[in-house]
């Protein structure tokens, strides 16, 4: 469902995406498809231990293998301390990181802090030889105790992962050794008083597993350290500029020494911002004078890239018997992995965001554990936290005998509501989303009856919140003589953004989307553009395209004025036609002016750069029907409807695609996906066979309802659409399981074994 809007000619239509043909014919070049003459293959030797001192590394027999061209270890990476001996901090994207941590993540020097951490790397004439050489490198370790969950790592006697780590509290560093990198806190009102005033208070503790983004294309890169000192990198990344900057910092070269060409990208979901391979390939290339390609295996992907954290979450919410939420408290303990940087701050901002609760207290802990460093994953942090809060909200509604959507509507955040951090919401669409859910035929329909015995059915709902991001984007436009426009941008296109950005330019110019030719270019060829993530691309790069199109339009108006010899104030351009209402009263089409371009003053280009405010926060809700096998504990999804406020859907097909994709990732997270860690802190299920992402057979069609509450901050009303849809599914499914089996799930994944165990613990005879 899309709101009809006659205001727009292009926006809201569904043109075929510009890169589509290349992608259905196999022509599209992804990172691993790129190759160069004389290219070598690189392979990374990784720690088999989750926590171990490196005593010695002996590469001598590996070096003798025919075809091995270079071997490097952590010592080959540049020092990270500045001249004062202090560790350099680098700002990558929004956050600053200790360069040392970044470097250790790329290759360990003194100790390995997670299984899969790179220890050495080989460049050889083919990947098989490189692999053999890795096996021939002898490393002796002193294995240390490992810790893999946040609560364990927070214990006083827990093994210390980073000796120099101290807890930060809002810019202040505390004094003792710890695994807690950061403690953050938000307080609103008086939470103790709030609970006193509550008639009903529910408190539960939840544990969620580490899960992976599961993009189908593994990380890859080709690096070529050239003779002129510049380093060319071809890879697939969500953030060409982010990876360029990080790679340059690690290699201790000037940022512009690195030229990064982003190739087509096979999924990211937040996981492809990090420079895992690039510095390694670059150093191998420097040592050999040849381009070096490294492609990760799937087990490397799972063990050594950045999944989203497992977490321990305690949530307590109180309400009056009339159904008014009064107080809420959360303690969020998020695994950072072996280096600081979990998404706990986002979790804190999201956990109670859907509700107007006068008294709130949220404490968040960013906790180091002996796992690979986490990275972003679609609304990072939010799904864990809102799984907890939305489950309790559902329980409150049931206990108070209020319809769960009605209960949410009674307490929904609206414009002006103060959020946990004290800021006030601008225009948001939660009420509209909840109304749409309530009125959806799916919600109004009766739950169908199971067809076989031992099966029970249930329906659940939940909503999710995500704040979305703005950040920097640049777009260039150039007019062609045939009346089409070339568009260059720096945002890698993961899911059709080339088209949604082109459509915004086309809308301004009054031409067709097909008449814009978009290209995603390398970091030498466009202004700084933050990566494709945070649901920001259609919002911010689209906005830059809007600005560039306005610039181009103005220049075309000036050109027409010159041709007609009238004041440019008298010329206007609407729907791709230039007019003057002055004395001469002339008109010409976009195309006609384009033909005249070179004879009337030369080429016409437009440009736009933005670092926008006005980011539209977004809400999505899910209605889900499930069937539970009471004998096996297995949950089957029967029917699902995702409702999301998109502000304005530029290309509804790809908005739906985001909603469907996010929903299904949420379903996978809810039901099966997890890092199953064995006793030695090693992941047992490091393959796509055992990591069990949903297949087509596990799912029904994913119904979508697009709600459009325009974001007043964006020229076309766009809100980011990429992330919030993952948030509600785990809670909605948990609530559906509760509806069917009258149990409350406190873990993710809610796999058959966990569900059966909960049923048994509740001693329910079903």
């Amino acid at each position, binding site marked *: 469902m899309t709101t009809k809007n006659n205001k727009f000619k292009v926006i809201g239509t569904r043109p075929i995406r510009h890169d589509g043909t290349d992608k259905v014919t196999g022509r599209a070049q992804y990172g691993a498809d790129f190759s160069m003459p004389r290219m070598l293959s690189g392979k990374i030797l990784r720690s088999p231990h989750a926590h171990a001192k490196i005593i010695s590394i002996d590469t001598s027999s590996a070096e003798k293998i025919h075809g091995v061209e270079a071997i490097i270890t952590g010592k080959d990476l540049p020092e990270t301390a500045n001249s004062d001996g202090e560790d350099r901090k680098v700002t990558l994207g929004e956050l600053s990181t200790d360069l040392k941590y970044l470097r250790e993540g790329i290759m360990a020097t003194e100790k390995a802090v997670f299984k899969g951490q790179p220890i050495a790397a080989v460049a050889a004439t083919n990947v098989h030889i490189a*692999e053999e050489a890795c096996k021939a490198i002898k490393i002796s370790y002193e294995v240390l105790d490992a810790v893999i969950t946040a609560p364990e790592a927070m214990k006083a006697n827990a093994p210390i992962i980073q000796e120099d780590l101290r807890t930060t509290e809002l810019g202040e560093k505390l004094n003792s050794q710890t695994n807690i990198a950061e403690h953050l806190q938000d307080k609103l009102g008086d939470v103790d008083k709030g609970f006193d005033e509550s008639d009903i208070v529910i408190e539960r503790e939840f544990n969620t597993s580490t899960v992976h983004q599961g993009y189908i294309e593994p990380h890859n890169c080709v690096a070529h350290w050239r003779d002129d000192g510049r380093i060319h990198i071809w890879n697939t990344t969500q953030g060409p500029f982010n990876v360029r900057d990080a790679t340059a910092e690690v290699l201790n070269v000037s940022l512009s020494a690195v030229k990064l060409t982003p190739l087509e990208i096979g999924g990211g979901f937040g996981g492809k911002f990090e420079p895992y391979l690039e510095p390694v390939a670059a150093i191998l290339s420097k040592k050999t004078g040849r381009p070096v390609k490294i492609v990760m295996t799937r087990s490397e992907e799972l063990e050594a890239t950045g999944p989203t954290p497992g977490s321990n979450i305690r949530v307590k919410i109180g309400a009056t018997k009339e159904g008014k939420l009064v107080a809420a408290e959360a303690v969020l303990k998020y695994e950072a992995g072996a280096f600081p940087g979990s998404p706990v701050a986002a979790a804190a901002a999201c956990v109670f965001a859907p509700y107007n609760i006068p008294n709130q207290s949220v404490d968040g802990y960013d906790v180091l554990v002996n796992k690979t460093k986490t990275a972003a994953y679609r609304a990072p942090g939010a799904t864990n936290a809102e799984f907890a809060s939305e489950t309790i909200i559902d329980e409150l509604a049931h206990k108070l005998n209020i319809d769960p959507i009605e209960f949410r509507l009674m307490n929904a955040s609206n414009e002006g509501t103060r959020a946990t951090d004290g800021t006030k919401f601008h225009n948001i669409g939660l009420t509209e989303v909840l109304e749409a859910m309530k009125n959806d035929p799916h919600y109004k329909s009766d739950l169908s009856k199971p067809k076989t015995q031992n099966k029970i059915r249930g329906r659940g709902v939940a909503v999710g919140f995500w704040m979305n991001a703005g950040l920097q984007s640049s777009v260039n436009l150039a007019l062609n003589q045939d009346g089409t426009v070339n568009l260059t941008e720096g945002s890698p296109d993961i899911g059709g953004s080339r088209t949604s950005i082109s459509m915004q330019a086309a809308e301004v110019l009054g031409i067709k989307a097909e008449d814009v030719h978009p290209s995603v270019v390398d970091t030498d060829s466009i202004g700084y553009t933050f990566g494709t993530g945070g649901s920001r691309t259609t919002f911010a790069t689209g906005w830059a395209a809007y600005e560039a199109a306005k610039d181009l339009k103005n220049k075309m108006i000036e050109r027409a004025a010159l041709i007609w010899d009238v004041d440019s104030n008298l010329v206007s351009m609407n729907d791709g036609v230039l007019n003057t209402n002055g004395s001469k009263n002339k008109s010409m089409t976009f195309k006609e002016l384009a033909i005249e371009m070179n004879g009337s003053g030369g080429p016409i280009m437009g440009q736009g750069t933005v670092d926008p405010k006005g980011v539209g926060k977004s809400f999505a809700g899910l209605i889900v029907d499930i069937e539970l096998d009471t004998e*096996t504990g297995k949950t089957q999804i029967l029917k699902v409807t995702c409702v999301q406020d998109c502000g304005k859907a530029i290309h509804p097909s790809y908005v739906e695609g985001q909603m469907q994709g996010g929903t299904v990732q949420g379903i996978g997270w809810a039901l099966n996906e997890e890092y199953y860690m*064995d006793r030695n802190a090693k992941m047992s299920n490091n393959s796509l*066979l055992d990591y*069990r992402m949903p*297949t087509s057979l*596990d799912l029904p069609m994913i119904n979508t309802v697009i709600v459009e509450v325009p974001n007043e901050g964006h020229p076309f009303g766009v809100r980011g659409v990429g992330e919030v849809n993952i948030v509600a599914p785990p809670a909605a499914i948990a609530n559906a399981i509760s509806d069917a089996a009258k149990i409350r799930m406190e873990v993710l994944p809610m796999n058959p074994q966990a569900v*059966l165990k909960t049923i048994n613990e509740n001693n329910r005879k079903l």
Partner: protein
Amino acid sequence: MKWIDYASPNSIKEAVALLSNKNTVARAMAGGTDLIVQLRAAPERIGNPDVVVDIKNIPELNEINLDSKGLTLGSAVPMYKIYNNESITASYPALQDSTSLVGGIQIQGRASVGGNLCNSAPSGDTIPTLIALNATCKVDGPNGSRDLKVEDFCTGPGKSVLENGEILISIHIPAPSKGSGSSYLRFIPRNEMDIAVVGVGTSISLDGDIVKSVKVALASVGPTPILVSDAEKIIGKSIEDEDTLKIAGEAAKNAATPITDMRGTIEFRKHLCDVLTRRTLKIATERARGN
């Protein structure tokens, strides 16, 4: 992957010669869907082979013979040829059950029942079915050929009775008796593309409601597939009697010796042995009755 040599013999004799060469470690490959993965990920677990002997070009190993005595399957026959063969699936529905759920369509285009057996994984989906259907297999080698029961074939995870140089030639399943039915079910958290948490293959033959014979075999709950001998306690009982299924389920539960791992705990797996045994017996019964 370390270097391997590849050989593609045209006769069993040649294959046996290659496999029994003392200077090399050779492994036979049919569909390769297990072997290639192992060569890449953990060659040490299969003895670090340096030669792969592709047996798909040996005519005998690709044969399918269905006659009054039963079904003989060459060891290299890919799964899709089995479940697409209506004569086979009509007589051996459990074989259809198990061959059509190994991997996805892509895997079924290559993987063979023989390979599944030789791989001897505790979770091998076709093995409980073969055991339940009283299958035997024919092995050839440097010291001549021999026949043995499938239930005696596997000796441990990834281990079998095959000796150096030996090759599985074919599997024979006797013709089903009248009034019999079979079924295979596995439990997986996903609906396809998964490894059995528990797999159960059963066959049953009935005289009216009375159980004439029954065979239950389990996958994924021990180092090898397990034949549940105690299930035969239900012989002579009425299948309509609720206790009958319970007895069989309980027998399966007791026969299972699972471990706790990423796929499930001991308790969960034993529980599932019970559930799946009852469910497969129900299905097999319905099939026996021609429903």
